[in-house]
C-alpha cells in the first residue's frame, strides 16, 4: 500500500501545485495583458472622466456610435454595451466605475425586455473571476453567486469558465492580440439587411427591476444624471404593449421603439439595427438628448 499511496499522493500534489502556479500565472496575465473585453477594460481604467456613457446589451453595443457623438457634440463618450449583457451586469460595471473613480456627466441605460432579467450572466461572471482578488470585484460577485469556491480552490475558476477565460483567451491577452473592435469606443455595428425580421416581447412584466432601481439609487445625489432609453425594434415584433408597461414603471424612459417602423432596410434583425440604422439612431439621440 505504501508505494501506491506515494504514487497517488505525488499525482495529487503535482496536480495541486500545477493548479496553484497556473492560477497565479493566468491571473497575472489577465491583470497585466491586453484587455480583451469591456469588463477587463473597465478594470484597467482609473481616474477617468467621460461626458457620456452608454450601458446595455448588444442593442447598445451595436447601436451607439460614440465616435460620431464626439465628432458632432465634442463630448467624450464610451459605450459599455455588452452583447447578451443584463441590467445586473451593467449595475456591477457602474459600481466598478465608481470604485475606480471613472466618472460620467450622463449615463444612458438601455431598457426593453431586459426589464424582466435579474442577476448577472455567465459571460460577465467569467470575465470577473480572474479579478476576484480585487475587493470591489469580490464584493460584487459575492452578491450574485454563492459559489465562493472560485477564490478558494486555485485554478478552479479558470476551469469552470474555460470557454471564456481559458488558455485561448489567455494566449490572446498575453500576445497582446486586440479584440476585433475598439474597446474604448465600444461600438460594433451589424452589417447587412435582415431577411427574417420578427420577434416577440414577453407578455408579462415583472413588478420591478431591482437592478434598475439600484442604478437610480447609485447616481442619486451625484453629479451624474442617469436616463433610460429604448432602441428601435422592428414593427413586426409581437406584444409591443410590453414597452407601454415599461414606460409606466419608468416614466422618464426615452422610448425609440417605433422610430424606424417604416424602415425595414435599417434592420439587421428585429432587435438589431445595421450600421446605417445605427448611425441614424445615434444622430437622433444626439439631437434629442445630447445637445
Amino acid at each position: 500500500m505504501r508505494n501506491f499511496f506515494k504514487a497517488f499522493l505525488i499525482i495529487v500534489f503535482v496536480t495541486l501545485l500545477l493548479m496553484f502556479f497556473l492560477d497565479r500565472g493566468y491571473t497575472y496575465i489577465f491583470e497585466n495583458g491586453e484587455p480583451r473585453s469591456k469588463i477587463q477594460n473597465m478594470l484597467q481604467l482609473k481616474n477617468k472622466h467621460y461626458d457620456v456613457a452608454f450601458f446595455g446589451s448588444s442593442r447598445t453595443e451595436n447601436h451607439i456610435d460614440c465616435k460620431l457623438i464626439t465628432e458632432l457634440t465634442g463630448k467624450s463618450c464610451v459605450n459599455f454595451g455588452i452583447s447578451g449583457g443584463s441590467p445586473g451586469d451593467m449595475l456591477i460595471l457602474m459600481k466598478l466605475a465608481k470604485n475606480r473613480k471613472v466618472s460620467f456627466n450622463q449615463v444612458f441605460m438601455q431598457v426593453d425586455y431586459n426589464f424582466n432579467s435579474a442577476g448577472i450572466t455567465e459571460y460577465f461572471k467569467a470575465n470577473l473571476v480572474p479579478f476576484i482578488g480585487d475587493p470591489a470585484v469580490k464584493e460584487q460577485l459575492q452578491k450574485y453567486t454563492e459559489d465562493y469556491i472560485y477564490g478558494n480552490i486555485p485554478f478552479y475558476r479558470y476551469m469552470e469558465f474555460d470557454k471564456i477565460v481559458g488558455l485561448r483567451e489567455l494566449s490572446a491577452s498575453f500576445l497582446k492580440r486586440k479584440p476585433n473592435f475598439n474597446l474604448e469606443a465600444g461600438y460594433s455595428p451589424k452589417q447587412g439587411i435582415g431577411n427574417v425580421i420578427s420577434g416577440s416581447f414577453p407578455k408579462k412584466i415583472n413588478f420591478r427591476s431591482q437592478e434598475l432601481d439600484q442604478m437610480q439609487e447609485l447616481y442619486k445625489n451625484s453629479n451624474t444624471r442617469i436616463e433610460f432609453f429604448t432602441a428601435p425594434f422592428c414593427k413586426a415584433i409581437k406584444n409591443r404593449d410590453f414597452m407601454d408597461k415599461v414606460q409606466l414603471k419608468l416614466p422618464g424612459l426615452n422610448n425609440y421603439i417605433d422610430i424606424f417602423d417604416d424602415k425595414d432596410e435599417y434592420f439587421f434583425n428585429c432587435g438589431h439595427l445595421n450600421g446605417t440604422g445605427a448611425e441614424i439612431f445615434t444622430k437622433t439621440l444626439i439631437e434629442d438628448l445630447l445637445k
Partner: protein
Amino acid sequence: MLFNSISFLIFLPVVFILYWGLFKKSLKLQNIFLLIASYLFYGWWDYRFLALIAASTLVDFFIGRFLQKTGNDFHRKMLLSLSLLFNLGLLGFFKYYNFFIESWMDSWANLGVELQVSSLNIILPVGISFYTFQTLSYTIDVYRRKIEPTSDIINFSVFVAFFPQLVAGPIERAKHLLPQFSKKRIFIEERAISGIHLILWGLFKKIVIADSCAIYVNAIFDNYENMNSASLLLGAFYFAFQIYGDFSGYSDIAIGTGRLFGFDLMRNFNFPYFSRNIAEFWRRWHISLSTWFRDYLYIPLGGSRGSKWQQVRNVFIIFLVSGFWHGANWTFVIWGGLHALFFLPLLLGHQNRKHLNQVAENKILPSFRELLQMLFTFGLTSFAWIFFRADSLVDAVNFIKRIFTNLRFELQYLSIERYNVEMLLIIGIFVLLEWFHRHLEHPFSGTFKWVKIIAIILMFLTLGVYSDQQEFIYFQF
C-alpha cells in the same frame, strides 16, 4: 454518476478506503459493500431503474440454478428462452418500442395509409444494453454447460451491477469476472498503480480529446448545410476521435477502477485506428461487444463455415445486429451495413485473419504500405461514422453529398471561438503518444514516466473542457 464528475471524485476514494480498510477481512462483506456501492452509483442517475437491474439479476440467477437442476433438454431450452425473452424483452421495450411503432407507421404511410398508433414517452435506462448482454452471456454459458451456475446471489448481483463497468462496459463474461468475486482479493501495488495511470489516461482521452472534439463536431454536424468540403471532412475526422476518446477513455477508467479493487476487467480497445484493414479494426474496437456477438451470434449461425452465401449472410447479420444494438435508428443499421460491406471483400479473399500482430512490430515507424493501409482503414471507418453521428439518414446522405458537391477547401470559422489548427495539433500529439506506446496500455512508463504524467496533468488542466462537459456517448446505448 459520471466518471468525470465531482461526485465520482468523492465516491471513489470513500469506497476504496472502506473496501480495503473496514471490509478487508471478509470477502462476503467486501462483496456486499461493492453491491451497495454499485447500486448507489447507478441510483445516482435514477434510483427507479435499480428495479430493472434487480429483476434482471434475479431472473438470470434463478434460471441458472434451474438449468443446473434439470437435465431435460426441453426444459433447458424453455428456461433459456425465458431468459432471452425477459432480457431482450426489456431491451426491446425500453430501447426499441418507439422505433418499431414509428417505422411501422412510416411504412404504412408510404403506402398511403395513415395509422394512428401513439408512441410512448419512454426513458432509456442507462447501460441497459450492457448489463442485459452480460447477464444473457451467463445464462447462455450455463445452458451450454461452459460454466457452473453460482449459488451465491450476492456474488451474482455484484457481477451484474459492478459499478466500474455497469453503464458502458466492458461487457464481461461470467467465466472471466464471476469467479473473481469468490476469490480473496489481494491488494497488488503494481496493479493498483497501473489502475491510477489508466484512470488518468482515460480522463485525458475523455476531457481533453473527446470533449474538445465534441465542440467542433457539434458545430459542423448541426450546421452542415453551411459547411464546405474541408469542414465536413474535418467533422467526420473529429468525430472519429471524439467517439474513440470518449469510449476508450471510459473503458480505461473502468478497467483502472476495477484494478483499484483487485479486479481484472477485459481490454476493450487496442489502438483500433492503427488497423491495416477492417477485420483488424474489429479485433481492436469495442472488443467485449464484438467477441460477444462472435460467440453468441456469429458462431451459432455457422460463422465462417458453410457455403459462401452462408458466410456472407452471417457477416451481414452480425454487423446489422451490432449496428442496431447501438441505437434505435436506421442510421446505426446503415453504419453496421457499411462495415459488413467493408468486411466482405476480406472474407471472400480470405484476408480477414491477416494482420493478427501489432502494426510495425519492433519498429519505430510503419512502412509506407502499412501507413497507406492504416489511412485507408481510418478513412473507411470515418466515412461510416458519419451515419453513426448524423441525426437521420437524410442528414447523413446530405452531409456526404455536400462533401462531394461543395468542393471548397479553405478552413472555415466555426463560430465556436476555436480554430481547427489547435484541435488538429492536440489530435496530432495524441496520435503520436498512442503510436509510440502502442504496445502498452497507457504512455506512463519508462525513464520519462513522471515527465509524461506532469505533461498530461498540465494538458488536462489547461486544455480540458469543463464548461461544456459531455456525457459519455455510449451511455445512450
